[in-house]
């Protein structure tokens, strides 16, 4: 067994869902809360600490439309995540390599048409 230490065991609910349908990057987000007013189901709440990212309070209600991320004026501050069971893959024809949504080691994005 490795010599690494263990985390302190705690009595904590293990929620069934990942609760990260929408994820904020605290380094980039300045808490402007614009995304909150684009959410169709009002799943995002303002953070009680001013300047901090909104709280995704109701991930179960997320429609996964990405309205929040699309509205964000600070690129990279908020991204939408598909849960793992919804990540789709593809095969690069020339090389036969298989890539999918959610991989860290993926090809560079190409230019998008009418995005």
């Amino acid at each position: 067994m490795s010599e690494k230490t263990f985390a302190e065991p705690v009595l904590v609910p293990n929620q069934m869902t990942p609760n990260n349908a929408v994820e904020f990057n605290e380094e980039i987000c300045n808490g402007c809360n614009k995304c909150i007013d684009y959410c169709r189901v009002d799943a995002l709440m303002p953070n009680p600490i001013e300047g901090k990212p909104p709280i995704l309070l109701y991930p179960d209600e997320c429609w996964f439309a990405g309205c929040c991320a699309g509205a964000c004026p600070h690129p990279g501050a908020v991204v939408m995540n598909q849960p793992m069971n919804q990540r789709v893959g593809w095969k690069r024809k020339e090389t036969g390599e298989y890539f999918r949504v959610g991989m860290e080691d993926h090809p560079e994005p190409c230019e998008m048409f009418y995005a």
Partner: protein
Amino acid sequence: MSKVNDIQTMNAIKWPYPVQYGKTHEIECDVLCLGGGVGGCYAAMAADDAGVKVVVVDEGPIIRSGSAGTGFDHWHSVATNPCSKVTPAELTEIYRTPRGWFHGPFSVSHVRFIEAMESWDCLLTAEKIGVPIRDYDDHFKDSIWRDDKTKLMFAYDVDKNHCIRFKRGAIFKPQLKVELDRRGIEQYEYVCATSLLTEDGKQGGRVIGATGVSIRTGEFYVFKAKTVILGMGQPTQNWKFHTELNGSASGFFDPNWTGDGAYMALKAGAKMMNMEQNDTFTEPGGGFRRPMYGVGDVHNTWYGAIIVDANGKAVPYVDAEGNEIPPDEYERLYHGGWTYEHGDDLRLTPRLAEGLKTGEWVLPLYADLTQMDPLERDALWGIMVGNEGKTNYPVLKMYNKYGFDPSKDMLEVVTRNNLEDYGLPEAWWELETWERWRSPSCGCLQFVDWNLRTSLEGLYAIGFGIGTNMAAGACTTGRYAARNAAKYSMNVDAVPVDQAQVEAEKNRVYKFAQRTEGMGWKECRAGMARVMQDYCSVTKGEAVFNKGLTWLDTIEANELNTLYARNPHELVRCIETENMLLVDRAILEASKARKHSNPWLSFYRVDYPEMPEEKDYTYSMTHMEGDKWVVEEIPLRWYLQGPYADNYEDNYDACSAIDDED
């Protein structure tokens, strides 16, 4: 409450908005639009054009709310555009043909005619407010489905040219919001409408306003209006309950479509059509599959995609006669995979099922967009898939972020369970799902006359809720209904609201927030969805329906009676849940009343398997008298029978209120 919930509650923080349950705002207007989707916005603009005061109420943010709020890739029924080769009446009849549209003979043709008459005008309005409806930059100059003179781009049936492709449907709704703001139209966002107010508080009386609750502050709204336009969609979640794990497969239509509009109309005494109709076509019901339009496919938005097997061998398409189309004739695929007369006249060869067994083709299959003509690829992936409903971010942009390149990559096709069980090629039609998880399809509709007025004075209805077709249907009926509503509002006086009715509604909606423990709305919704799956889905029959109603009775007396809300957000979800139960009842009562089976309604009763001839088809009409349910029948073509004229054009001329527009 469980101990685990206690642990979580210990860390709860103060609600971020100032909550004032019961604080009442009173707003007066001539025309009240309930629902601010594209239809509600077009209604508001038309009422504003007519010079009356209009107010829009939406449970979400109008800049993105509604089923078309995040985009669309094509615009239907443009029968009067300069390139069209079909008249509105002809198109309306085509929609009634067996494969013309999924409603078939149950198509609500007077509504569809209105749609076909005004679809092009509504597009021109869109263009005026900054929505790109043409190929301005000539990117598709050489494409067979682009008209050089008008620069319009057509989809699907490119022989008749009545469906227009959009390059950037995802910006449509934000542009509408800009226009509403520019006009100074009063908008109430994040307010959930909860009931209709009627003259003297009487069921069946003239509709004179509505109530609402803020999902953020819990405050109460009383909207006093001379006339009300209902644009709140259809009840789509009665069979389904989603969690985060469903991802963007969680539903194609607006998640706020919990049937509140149907609830409100039924409670007020309005008549609704075909409550018993439900099937799997209109929405990928269960949400147990992949992001919508996000895997390789051959139908609808994916027409023209070339499907190959694991070794790159193409799976040929066949035409309507079953002839395989050789790859060097694939241009035919782009020339409209779908004509309304023939339906899906291009599909994969039925030999695929056998070929997979013999090894002629090898799983898995891929959609090979790399082989496509580059312009066609731009259209399929960039325009169509990239803006089809909510695909712009979760498919187009997300796949791009992870490096998907349609000119280099082949997207996987996900096959469904046992291919033999389902038959090919429908087997892997991505949007289909298990039969139990259903949507109303062309059912659960507000009954509307040629004015788009419901059975109640002062109440009009638009959009999906009356059987129209997508964004074009919502916008056309929105502005048509608003013209009539505005005209009506100019000729009537405002009526004071009945305070007892308002108080009763306050008691109804706030009780959930006055309880401190009990059942959460999610468990209740999941339970109610199971009742509908078990007792009003695949297996239908009198005993089954009765069991379903018994279950609803017991839920109402037990679990629903303990539903509790810890903040205004949960409060609105509880209200919606209670509303859904009444709509469930209406669906079951209408199901009981239809004593035969009908494939068009996906309605198969074990106790009444007989199928009537088409000439004997009827709509069911459901309404409430007190707490009692009344279900009647009316002929399908009632809108071309007395007192109406026997043709679409004369009725339209008499009722479209066009003269009042100027």
